[in-house]
């Protein structure tokens, strides 16, 4: 195991975060605060409580997930796409480093960054609303697993993407609708039966529901189903990655 190389990639990527501190940390904090003001303060005065939880608290896990998913996919994909784009990937490919170590470095850094920003959102949220976490370990389970899985997913997108448009396609166009329609801002019990049924096909619903359960013990779907969904998605990403390792897909001609 080439530990030095994993460390090099990891810290190199983390240094990039430091350089782009404003964009990567401040902007999610601002947008979260805006969500709290708009949804929490404005709508929250109309919707007092959902399942006995104040509206501001209710939306917090969904907001964390929204940021976590977009950040992890964004960072995971950019980390590997950028060297591909500039050509500096030659160096990684000609180093004594296995694909697994490359993934550890890039995905590890993307997940770390996502977790940092998720935590900042949690702290910001706690300034607006009273929060308690009923099952801290379950919360960490979902938090960390989601960060790792979606950073890995981002890494796959970064390898697949051949231009910036493709790179941004999924984080910009696919994730937000899934998150917004996945019960971030409401309980799906509030939907008409048809839309409630449709929502069950949205994997992000399971993520948000399970995550919310760890906070408040309320959920739209069984928390075990949530855990199963994220594990299945992780397994899918890992198999795709194994295939890429074997074939050198889009990395080695």
């Amino acid at each position, binding site marked *: 195991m080439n530990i*030095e190389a994993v460390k090099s990639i990891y810290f190199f990527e983390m240094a*990039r975060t430091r350089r782009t501190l404003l964009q990567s940390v401040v902007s999610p904090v601002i947008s979260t605060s805006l969500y709290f003001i708009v949804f929490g303060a404005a709508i929250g005065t109309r919707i007092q409580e959902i399942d006995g939880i104040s509206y501001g608290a209710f939306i917090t896990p969904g907001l964390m997930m929204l940021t976590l998913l977009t950040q992890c996919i964004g960072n995971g994909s950019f980390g590997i796409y950028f060297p591909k784009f*500039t050509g*500096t990937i030659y160096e990684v*490919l000609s180093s*004594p480093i296995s694909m697994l170590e490359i993934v550890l470095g890039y995905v590890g850094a993307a997940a770390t960054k996502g977790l940092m920003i998720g935590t900042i959102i949690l702290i910001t949220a706690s300034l607006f609303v009273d929060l308690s976490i009923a099952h801290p370990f379950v919360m960490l389970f979902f938090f960390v697993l989601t960060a790792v899985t979606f950073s890995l997913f981002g890494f796959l997108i970064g390898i697949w993407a051949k231009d910036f448009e493709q790179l941004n396609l999924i984080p910009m166009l696919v994730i937000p609708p899934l998150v917004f329609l996945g019960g971030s801002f409401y309980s799906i019990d509030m939907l008409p039966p048809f839309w409630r049924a449709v929502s069950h096909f949205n994997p992000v619903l399971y993520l948000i529901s399970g995550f919310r359960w760890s906070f408040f013990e309320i959920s739209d779907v069984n928390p075990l189903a949530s855990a199963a969904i994220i594990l299945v998605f992780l397994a899918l990403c890992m198999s795709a990655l194994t295939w890429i390792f074997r074939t*050198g897909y889009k990395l080695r*001609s």
Partner: protein
Amino acid sequence: MAPIVSVSNLSKTYASGFEALKGVSLDIEEGEILALLGPNGAGKTTLISIVCGIVNATGGKVTVGGHDVVRDFRQTRAMIGLVPQELTTDAFETVWNTVTFSRGLHGKKPDPEHIEKVLKDLSLWSKKDSTLRELSGGMKRRVLIAKALSHEPRVLFLDEPTAGVDVSLRKSMWEVVERLRASGVTIILTTHYIEEAEEIADRIAVINSGEILLVEDKKALMTKLGRKQLRVDLTQPLETVPDSLASYDLRLEGDGERLIYEYDTSAERTGITALLAAMAEAGLRLKDISTRQSSLEDIFVEIVEAGR
């Protein structure tokens, strides 16, 4: 002694169906400077990329230091430094960080003293905190060299190192290469300039269309290939070469208005003096005289034809 790099029967067909290498075999001895000489598109970069692990071979085998580059990639890649043809750099990084990063990638523990020495050797020390986008092309090239040297490689690949490089940098680059060779590093450089190969290499491998045409000691090759033509334009066209000049093996061209004499620049006597005297004696009136070095292209044609 076993060769440090051994390429045997290496072939590469790209996904497009293009056959870039057609069964290349080449042994490189430890401590030598080998120039891989060939025109654009010959397959030089492809060959290097396979040795370094950037491109997968279609067939054949490469070993570095006795290790297979696919199976034992950790050993082989740790030994190799690569300076790519393209100036690919991470524009927003500092020189210091990018060179340190390279060392880490190759599994070496941090060693700021070594990095400092490398940067100083390449006259980059004063730029260590500059970001790469602030540097000129020549300096970027030096940064790429510094990156390749950051992990103390035993084998260094320089892919067209002088492309877009000015004379003074070229000179200092050859000094660095000489110093590395003196310290025992094996150097393989690619070029499409025959003068460059001549200037620096111990041995020259000529490659064209994915095939190695010959590998030879520089001196032997230069003698073999260092031929020149003397062209003599005449005021009056000739029907045939005069008998008195028969011993010179002359050729008539351009409707008898030009005589061509081929000679060997490295020979003790080129025969030019005697030839010109003989021409005057034969009563030929000369309009113009010029000489022409055989170009790389002529040499390729010659080698390809000799190979038939």
